[in-house]
Each structure stands twice: as C-alpha cells, then as structure tokens.
C-alpha cells in the first residue's frame, strides 16, 4: 500500500486522541449515576454496594489525591490511567504476537 498512512502514525494519533479524551474531555462528561447505579437505586439494592477496598488510593474515583482543582485532578488521573493501560496492553501485545522470524519465537 504505497502512500498509505503508517501504522506508527495511526497509533500515535490514536493515543493522542485518547489522552485528550481522558485528560480534557472527561471533565465535561455527565456526572449522573450510570445505568446500573441508577437501576440499583430505583430497584432498591444500591445500599448493598460495599466500600471499595482501594477507595482511598491516589487515583480513586478518577481524581488525583492532593490536586484541588477539579479539572486538573480528573485530567491527571485520566492521562495516568491511559498511560498505564497503554503500557500493559501494548507491552502484552508485543509479547503475545507472532514474530515475523521463527528464530525469535
């Protein structure tokens, strides 16, 4: 495919889009309870939800502990989370994939 966009370009552009979504756009997301949470409230089993064991972690609830500004706190959490996911999933895929040369595999 001559003149085609390179895979590297697509991955870099895609990751940048993801970082913008998680780091910036997420501030404008709806804060209303999600579908399951709302149903659990309406149907009367919301109270069975237990406290999360990592609920006081540094990024719990998509907020960065110690960062007062809401926009920055959520943005930093989103960017860090995206990078962690990228590292684990991207690294994992490189390990799992078929290698081009049999010598490497």
């Amino acid at each position, binding site marked *: *495919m001559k003149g*085609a*966009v390179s*895979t*590297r370009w*697509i*991955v870099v552009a*895609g*990751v940048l*889009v*993801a970082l913008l*979504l*998680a780091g910036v*756009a*997420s501030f404008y*997301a*709806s*804060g*209303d*309870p*999600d*579908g*399951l949470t*709302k*149903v*659990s409230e*309406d*149907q*009367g*089993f919301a109270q*069975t*939800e*237990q*406290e*999360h*064991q*990592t*609920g006081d*972690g540094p*990024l*719990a*609830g*998509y907020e960065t502990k110690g960062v007062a500004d809401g926009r920055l706190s959520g943005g930093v959490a*989103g960017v*860090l*989370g*995206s990078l*962690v*996911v*990228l*590292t*684990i*999933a*991207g690294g*994992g*895929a490189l390990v*799992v*994939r*078929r290698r*081009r040369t049999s010598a490497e595999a």
Partner: protein
Amino acid sequence: MHVPDGFLDAPTSVATGVVAAVGIGLALRGARRELDDRTAPLAGLVATFVFATQMLNFPVGAGTSGHLIGGALAAVLVGPATALLCMSVVFLVQCLLFADGGITALGTNIFLMGIVTVVVGWAVFRGLQMVLPQRVSSVPAAAAGAALVSVPVAALAFVGLYAVGGTVDIPLASLTTAMLSVHVLIGLGEAAITFLAVGSIVAVRPDLVYGARRVLATRSLVLRTATK
C-alpha cells in the same frame, strides 16, 4: 455497568471469576493467531481508547448516564481474543487504581463487559457482514450494529447473574425492564462511537482492521481471477 462489591453473593462472584480466568486463558492462545508484528501496536491503542472513552459518560434520559463499553469495537478492530485481553486490562486498571468496579466483582465485570460484549459483538458483526454487501465500507455499519446489540445483552446477562446470586430479592421482571430500557439507549451511544472509531481507521488503513480482513482477502482473490 461496573458492578461494585456486594451486589452479587460470593459463590456467584467466584463462578464469574473462574469463567473470566478461563476466558482470558483461551484469549491468550487465540490472540497469537490474531496479532502479528503489523497489528500488535493496535492492541495497545484499542485498550487505551476504550479506557479513555469509558470516562466519557453521556446522558441517557433523566438523571442517568452511560458510557461506551467497547467490547464490540475492540473485537472488530483487533479480533475477539485480543479484544478480551484489552478489555481485561482496562477493567483491572479501573478496579485497582480507580476504585471503579469491585475487587471481588472483577471477574463479574470481565465476564459481563468483556466476554459477553466481545462474544455477542463479534457474532452479530459476522452475521451482519454476511447480510450486508461484501465491501470494506460495510464494516463500520456492521460494527455499529454489533455494538448496539452487545450492550442490552450484557444488561440481560447482569439480570441473569442477579437472578442467581443477587444479594437482595428484586422482582426480576421490573429489574429486566429497568436494565433493558436504560441500556438500549446506552447501546445507541455505543453504536455511534463504534461507527466513528471503526470508520476512521477503515478510512485510512482498512488492512489493519481485523474485521475487514475477510472482505479484503475476497477482494484480492477476485482481482487475481480477473487478471488471469
């Protein structure tokens, strides 16, 4: 649809945990067939995009929101086995770092939003592909249809789990109606986002899209016959 700790009883959580573990084991083997040097980088991108997009709750009706699940999207882009691995990484990170989705419910969340949406999404996608014109341009539409169906089916799967291991006695009919009505709307959002995301990669590099491989293969086969 992240299930917190406490909604389902311990036996059910253990059972979904076992199903999730077996699913991941199978996916690790299957992903070897889907991933090669060319497509492996896309897996990291797909997981990152799903994580980011899951932060974007959109309103669905009064006082309720929903976000993309992404199982169908991931299955079409990188193949169902790799998709389950990508989704599992997202749920693991959300659970441990962001306190989103309970720790004892991790298996449940991987089952509902990973296995169910990936398997249903991929099956519907393949079904639609057979019905729709055999063109690359049909791929985003088939992916959107798969996304649309995958969300309410996952909601029904939750009802099924709740019927077996819910910690409170809830009339199942009203739970089913409530879960379905919200998640059909979330499914519409899921379909729109999936259409745009799959459409943009299909537009620039259809050869990278796992769900487009079959159409591309048929196309080159036809060309070769024609030149002979």
